[in-house]
């Protein structure tokens, strides 16, 4: 995948993710509603590809205003990822030469790899994740399961043990997907399915939209790595 195509695809998916987030803010009140409206309009312009540097600059400013408003991210990791993708794309437009453009987007690709690998590492060193109890407690006690019927999954320890290890192995092996493009496509499909499952089980819909915004960039990054090595 070429750098230009990766940037364009990434901006379209990012625009979609920001549009989705902004529509939810429009349902809110006061400053959130106003910022939601502004960001929804900017997201449409971003998807259309007009004035990307200007649009991304305003989106960055409004992102910072939102962080200040909520004294941190509103929706945890999905807001952080949105900001990271936006910042790296903005830097890629701002960069005077191709070398710095590649540095900015390479950084995003590495962060994406780390987002999975580090998450897997944190889990695998935790005995509760290794024996499935951590996921059992997530279903039983946390605010995340979206229905009472899902809470009952806490009583299915074997299923949760299999789910825990599937996630841990996938996350730890994710960096190896950079070896080959076919492996990367398979890994990204699995990752998208993982985010879809999180959206269905725990209501984390924003994660499902924002993580794929970085997938075109990692596709380009893998191609670039293959050229170098």
């Amino acid at each position, binding site marked *: 995948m070429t750098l230009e195509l990766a940037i364009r695809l990434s901006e379209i998916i990012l625009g979609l993710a920001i549009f*989705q987030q902004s*529509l*939810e*803010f429009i*349902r*809110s*009140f*006061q*400053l959130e509603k106003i910022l939601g409206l502004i960001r929804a309009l900017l997201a449409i312009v971003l998807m259309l590809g007009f004035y990307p540097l200007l649009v991304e600059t305003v989106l960055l400013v409004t992102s910072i205003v939102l962080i200040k*408003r*909520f*004294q*941190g991210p*509103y*929706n*945890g990791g999905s807001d952080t990822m949105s900001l990271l993708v936006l910042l790296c794309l903005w830097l890629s437009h701002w960069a005077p030469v191709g070398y710095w453009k590649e540095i900015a987007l390479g950084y995003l690709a590495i962060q994406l790899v780390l987002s999975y690998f580090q998450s897997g590492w944190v889990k695998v060193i935790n005995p509760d994740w290794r024996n499935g109890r951590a996921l059992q*407690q997530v279903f*039983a*006690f946390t*605010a995340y*399961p*979206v*229905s*009472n*019927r*899902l*809470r009952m999954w806490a009583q299915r320890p074997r299923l949760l043990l299999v789910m825990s290890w599937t996630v841990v192995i996938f996350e730890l092996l994710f960096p190896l997907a950079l070896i080959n493009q076919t492996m990367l496509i398979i890994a990204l499909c699995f990752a998208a399915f993982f985010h*879809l499952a999180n*959206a*269905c089980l725990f*209501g984390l*819909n*924003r994660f*499902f939209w924002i993580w794929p915004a970085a997938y075109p960039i990692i596709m380009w990054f893998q191609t670039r790595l293959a050229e170098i090595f």
Partner: protein
Amino acid sequence: MGFVTDPTAQPSNWVAFRALPEQIGFFSGLLRLFHNPQWNELLYINTCAEHLFESYSEFSEQEIGNRLLVALRSGEIVATGEADYLMFRIRVLEFDAGQSQGEVVFVSRPFAVSLSGVRQ
């Protein structure tokens, strides 16, 4: 959360805010993938509650109070009986040695229901 007429009193009846549905159907789940503002707001309220659990934060208390007042004003929450003030509390479920137990770790100040504006 609960309601009182005397700001120095404690609610006699506490109810959960946005209690979980029994189950979510396929089409409802599909819609939630695209648009789920109430759930994401609930996750944000949980973040604020975690901050309050760790140490007191006026911002977090105000944020939760504001959102409950907005829910009341929009009709999502219906107060039973006389309700001049709204209060909320945070109950933490702890899991220790195979046993789970709930403990109330925070009770908010009263928020006047009659105030139309929501402070930011």
